[in-house]
């Protein structure tokens, strides 16, 4: 187990380095002249030179990368090109919206996908099962923006239960208002992500139904559904843990778009704004944090999977 964890950890570290290099060099090599890009077409050569000096762009690329990474390792992602504000500080502040939003979306997705997925497997071939599969297929095809717009229309405009957009100015100092502002966004992401998760749960449950141990349990007098719930579900849980790593990426992407739709001051909206401003230092920091997060979750999922699945432990 420890050996596996160490190998996997090495892989994670390599992954983080490769990802950081990919981000850094894409943002440095693609534009040609970064200083000109930041200065815009209006900038005079002297201004462009000043930007170049300020950002250390005259240094060799590798040295620039090393100095950026040196900062990253100390938790310093550099400063904004526009207003010189610390990128790490802003990310931490925006995380107060994005992290709760992600957790709430995940909760919605799991609460909705697991029971319905198992149910649709149990009802397979009957009307109920067909309706659930068809609905989940359709929901998985709905663009998240549009889903958000429709939820705003029904629950915010027509019923008036939630604010249409925005986040309270005082943030989590007013916990109820902050929570209320995140409900509709979380529902939107959760339902769409949950629809995809549901299909996994369904096929994992179908697979469990066919296993020998479920048949044995059924032979000992349980009904097939009881056997599935008591003996099959732990295995369904395993495959859910596996796909959770993939779902995290979906949650992040969903939150980028949904924060824009609901004008929530989170990391996703920050990224969209900074890409528009071509604030490359901020963009590279944000991209590193987001992909790093996906890689770390993948690592944790693999480790967790190893811990809870005895079969994998023995084969090691």
């Amino acid at each position, binding site marked *: 187990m420890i050996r596996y964890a160490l190998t996997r950890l090495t892989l994670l570290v*390599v*992954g983080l380095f*490769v*990802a950081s290099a*990919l981000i850094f060099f*894409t*943002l440095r090599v*693609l*534009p040609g002249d970064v200083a000109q*890009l930041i200065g815009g077409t209006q900038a005079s050569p002297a201004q462009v030179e000043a930007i170049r000096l300020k950002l250390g762009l005259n240094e060799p690329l590798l040295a620039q990368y090393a100095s950026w990474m040196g900062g990253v390792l100390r938790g310093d992602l550099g400063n904004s090109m526009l207003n010189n504000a610390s990128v790490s500080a802003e990310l931490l502040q925006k995380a107060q919206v994005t992290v709760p939003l992600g957790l709430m979306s995940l909760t919605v997705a799991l609460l909705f996908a697991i029971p319905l997925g198992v149910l649709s497997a149990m009802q*397979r071939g009957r009307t109920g099962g067909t309706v659930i599969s068809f609905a989940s*297929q*359709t929901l*998985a*095809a*709905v*663009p*998240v*923006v*549009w889903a958000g*717009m429709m939820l*705003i*229309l029904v629950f915010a*405009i027509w019923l008036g239960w939630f604010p*249409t957009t925005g986040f309270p100015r005082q943030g989590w100092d007013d916990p109820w208002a902050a929570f209320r502002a995140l409900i509709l966004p979380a529902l939107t*992401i959760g339902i*769409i992500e949950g629809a*995809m998760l549901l299909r*996994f749960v369904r*096929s*994992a449950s*179908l*697979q469990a*139904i*066919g296993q020998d141990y479920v*048949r044995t349990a059924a032979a000992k007098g349980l009904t*097939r559904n009881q056997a599935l719930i008591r003996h099959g579900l732990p295995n369904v849980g395993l*495959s859910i843990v*596996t*796909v959770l790593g*993939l779902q995290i*990426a*979906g949650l*992040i*992407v*969903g939150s*980028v*778009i949904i924060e*824009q*739709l609901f004008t929530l001051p989170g990391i996703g909206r920050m*990224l*969209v704004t900074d*890409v*528009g401003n*071509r604030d490359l230092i901020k*963009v590279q920091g944000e*991209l590193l944090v987001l*992909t790093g997060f*996906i*890689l770390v979750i993948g690592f944790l999922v693999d480790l967790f999977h190893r811990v809870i699945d005895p079969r994998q432990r023995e084969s090691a």
Partner: protein
Amino acid sequence: MSEIAARPVAARARWHWLRQLWRLPTGRFGLITVAVVGLVALVSVFWTPYDPISIDVNARWQLPSLAHLLGTDGTGRDILSLIMGGARTTVFVAIGSGIIASVFGIVLAALGSLTPRWARESMAVFIDILIAFPVLLIAMMISSVWGGSLWVVIWSVGIGFGVSIARVTRPELRRVLQSDFIVAARSSGLSNTQVLWRHLLPNIAPVFIVQLSWSMAVAVLAEAGLSYLGYGASPTEPSWGVLLANLQAYIGIHPLAAVWPGLAITITVLGLNLLGDALREATDPTLSRGRDPLHPPRASIRHVPEVIS
């Protein structure tokens, strides 16, 4: 003689999967949807009921009528024409990113399976790292440098899904490489490229086409999402995502107008997803139909598009 007789049989076998596809309700829905979207896109090149960008201040926010089947938007543009034009953009993006994803995916998969051991093992690790970059983040990365455009969408979906294709086809390639006929082909003097082209690719084609169908679904969602964010189609290009962004502010007053582009995206994506599912079912003989609980569908890992837009 015998060769002439064998030819029609071979031809029939080659198109057998298509008939199989048509027999599945999901396959039929997928094929019809894709055909309709393609046809609408083609027609829109030559004809739309109105000019999709012509503004008519007298006809703002009209409800659906005979003159404007789906109504008009806040500047009096005909929504049906905008949707038809948007179909063209969608098809363009889907095909473009499909081509890039295929090329990129095959190159990565080939590098990860046909090369010496150290190279293909590091390639496998590299592919696993690239998976952590969702399509939308790749697109934001390119947009921050070059600004947004449809080409950015095409490239980022192409690269993003190329990696997924590589991840799925690489083990498949490795598996086929073990077969006797590959050993035979190798020993009769074929080079790596020849083996790849003549023997490997035809054998992984089913897996590949299925992935391609799903990658096009992702492309449609990505185009809509990125255009909505302002990094895809320009505001003057007809696009379903741009249309959604324009109608968003008026959703409370004119909800019906915003329904159409969303429906168009949903149906197209659903069609491509179901087509992929059905293709897999039609081309994979080992996949049972899942009627018998003792032999449920084999594949437990289904496709998860990284972009939900």
